[in-house]
């Protein structure tokens, strides 16, 4: 048995592969739902209705998708340059730290100034955090998968120190959390009585802008070229190290903004459970999107809908909540397998 490249890949097949894969994931998960003693049809109906069927559900799905768009972009941009940034989680937290440092009363300015400032600070912090792995990689060839991954834990410990120590909010009745973001820094809501805030628009804006940069500018061209073939890129006159550094910094900046959006838009203050692994899920988002920066938005919304819907499904039907994780994991796996099979085929001999 061997894997061969398909001579011609039809566009139709490439587009329908993710859809078929999602269907396959739903069928596989159905087995688990039956095992849990419920009708899969009812369960899926519940899932879709909860995630997309009401104003509140839709708003929840989009607000959950917001950090995923940011971290998805972070992963996709870095992966395009073959810089394997697994540290989205740490960059998210450091971005949140930057927002907390500036947004809890040190600065007072009208929202038009303060909010962009918070995003810029978070982006800078996320980018700067990646400087260490980038230097280690380019100067000493230390594998960035290891360094970015391990930095996540270091950042979490630093955050833990800050909110239990110097940044601890005296008004929080002893809970380990930082002071809340002042009113001028809180992101305005997009819809009343929901959690959806303008961070979602910022995320979509970032996706559009970074897509434009990637496809239409010299910088994007260089990032793509370096990721596809570093030797050939050097031959074409590109400074490979510099391009990787730029891509890594942009990637860190995106993940840092995810932290800002969560702290200033959703939570209002910094805690240790700010992110249920958005940094890691961002990698799945980027893979689902095939590293296409615009496709990151629907991919993030899809995963978010599955999470939000499955959460509600498990509550109303009394089946375990971790089925949501299983469903997400299965769809990501199925979609990746399907896209591989759209390009390659198996040959049995």
């Amino acid at each position, binding site marked *: 048995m061997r894997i061969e490249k398909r*001579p*011609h890949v039809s566009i139709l097949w490439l587009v329908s592969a993710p859809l078929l894969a999602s269907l396959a994931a739903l069928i596989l998960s159905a087995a688990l739902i039956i095992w849990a003693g419920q009708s899969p049809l009812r369960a899926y109906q519940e899932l879709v209705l909860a995630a997309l069927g009401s104003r509140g559900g839709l708003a929840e799905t989009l607000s959950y998708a917001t950090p995923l768009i940011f971290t998805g972009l972070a992963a996709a941009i870095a992966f395009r340059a073959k810089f394997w940034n697994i540290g989205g989680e740490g960059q998210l937290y450091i971005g949140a730290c930057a927002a907390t440092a500036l947004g809890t009363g040190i600065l007072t300015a009208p929202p038009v100034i303060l909010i962009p400032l918070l995003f810029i600070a978070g982006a800078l912090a996320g980018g700067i955090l990646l400087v260490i792995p980038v230097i280690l990689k380019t100067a000493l060839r230390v594998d960035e998968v290891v360094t970015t991954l391990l930095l996540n834990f270091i950042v979490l410990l630093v955050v833990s120190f800050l909110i239990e120590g110097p940044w601890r909010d005296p008004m929080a009745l002893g809970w380990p959390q930082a002071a809340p973001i002042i009113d001028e820094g809180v992101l305005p809501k997009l819809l009343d009585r929901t959690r959806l805030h303008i961070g979602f628009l910022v995320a979509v804006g970032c996706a559009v802008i970074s897509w434009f940069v990637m496809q*239409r*500018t*010299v*910088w994007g*061209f*260089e990032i*793509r*070229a370096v990721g*596809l*073939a570093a*030797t*050939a*890129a*050097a*031959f*074409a*006159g*590109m*400074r490979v190290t510099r391009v990787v550094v730029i891509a890594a910094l942009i990637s860190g900046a995106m993940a840092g903004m995810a932290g800002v959006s969560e702290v200033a838009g959703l939570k209002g203050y910094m805690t240790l459970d700010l992110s249920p692994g958005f940094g890691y899920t961002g990698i799945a988002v980027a893979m689902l999107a095939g590293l296409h920066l615009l496709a990151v938005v629907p991919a993030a919304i899809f995963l978010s809908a599955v999470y939000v819907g499955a959460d509600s499904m498990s509550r109303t039907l009394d089946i375990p909540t971790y089925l949501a994780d299983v469903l997400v994991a299965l769809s990501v796996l199925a979609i990746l397998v399907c896209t591989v099979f759209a390009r390659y085929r198996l040959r049995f*001999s």
Partner: protein
Amino acid sequence: MTKSPNQPFRSQSSSPLSHESKGTPPSGGVPLLVAEGICKTFGEHRANDDISLRLAAGEILCLLGENGAGKTTLMNILFGHYVADAGTITVAGQPLPPGSTQAALRAGIGMVHQHFTLAGGLTVLENVVLGTQSLWSLRDVRANARVRLQTLMNDVGLRVDLDALVDTLPVGQRQRVEILKVLYRQARVLILDEPTAILSPQECDGLFTTLRALAARGLAVILISHKLEDVMRISDRIAVLRDGRLVGEVAAAKAKRDDLVRMMIGRSLTQVSKGTSEGNDQDTGEPVLVLRKVSVRKGRDRLCDVSVSVRQGEILGIAGISGNGQSLLADVIYGLVRPDQGEVRLYGEAISSTQQVIDAGVGRICEDRLGTGMIAGMSVAENAASTRRRIPPFARWGWYIDNRAVRARAQDYQQQFDVRCRHIGQPIAELSGGNIQKLILARELADQPRFILAHQPSRGLDAGAIAFVHECLIQARKQGAGILLMSEDLDELLALSDQVAVIFEGTLSAPLARDEATVSRLGLLMIGHADEIENEKIEKKSKRHAH
């Protein structure tokens, strides 16, 4: 034949070929290998179209054909890499199960690939026994193998140090290891894919002697090549492939060069070689590239004190066996590698970066088309723009890529240089080697550079594309460009160059004028025998004095 061909490794015979000489007689009689009606298509491309071949023991058959004629596909089918769409293969009367290299090995078919399949960190002995032993067997076969290999080497006259690490061996020796590997597995059919491509003329002679000796012992040999001279020298029979079809078979003794060429390319080729470099009297052009005492070390490659200068309107050829520093020299001139010592001046200015070299206007035709020259994952259009992405017409304001201009320019290139592709958005990697090279030529020669570095510009191309590449270079020289041509193909160098220098282990010889540069003299320089040339010169002088 006493032993079953299914268990060749268990055999205790002292010479793996001995059963052959006892079995089928060296010539005539039952053919050893028969291929009937082999067909193979890739997509719409017919790589092999109803090919039938017979091969007797003790015979050397040469498969001649241009690149893409289907030679390698056919051999890959014989060796079980591919499964044929139709057709059968029998070895010594037994049908060969398709699509299994294991079965092919068991039936006694051994292949030496163009790109060697050796493990560099292991010794010769270990490489030979690699894969001959079951994973579950705990016995060490090496002692046994050593004895067998010693006798084998004595019998056929192949000498290699069994305990040397393969990494430390020169290419010619590595090829011997590959051949030994095949013989050790008691092959009855030896397939060699382009074996002479990497050898110096002297090493070629050695290989041919070995092959003759092996054939005399009853081994059947199939040689894949597109070099006419080699083919006519070594083979008994020549089979010519064109466009996937077998267009003719001739006995080598009766073969004529022109007939073979006509069969190969379907028309007679007016000789590109001679008379191309006429009218180069204005040899006093400005130097466009000057290297002064350049030394650099990078990995296992090095350059020592290389000095060279290329003038406008001349082609300076650099001959050498690959791996003697050519790539490093090219990288230094491309600005990819900084020399440790010495200076490189392009149009009178020191080189600081690759982008500067590109902006100064240099035609760079690099050795590895798809790995270096082109960005493999990108489209034809994007590759047309890749080196000049920051300047008009490709970019506006220095950062916005104007896709319309990129496409327009790519279309120009496509038409002017006849680049065959479905559309300019097609990934470059899907194009054939010749078409990729045409796009490179289009991109690199578009602005009429005053200096061109052509590194292996025609390697792996078919005769038509080679002629086109040569025409482009000659045309550029007529327009006053200075060209540094690095090639392993001596015929190409001698046909095009005004002077030829030889690079050996990082040292560059003084350039020889074309009438002084003979194949034998260059060949000696290529393997580092500079003193013998001195002797030769002295002999000539003394002869002249005697006259």
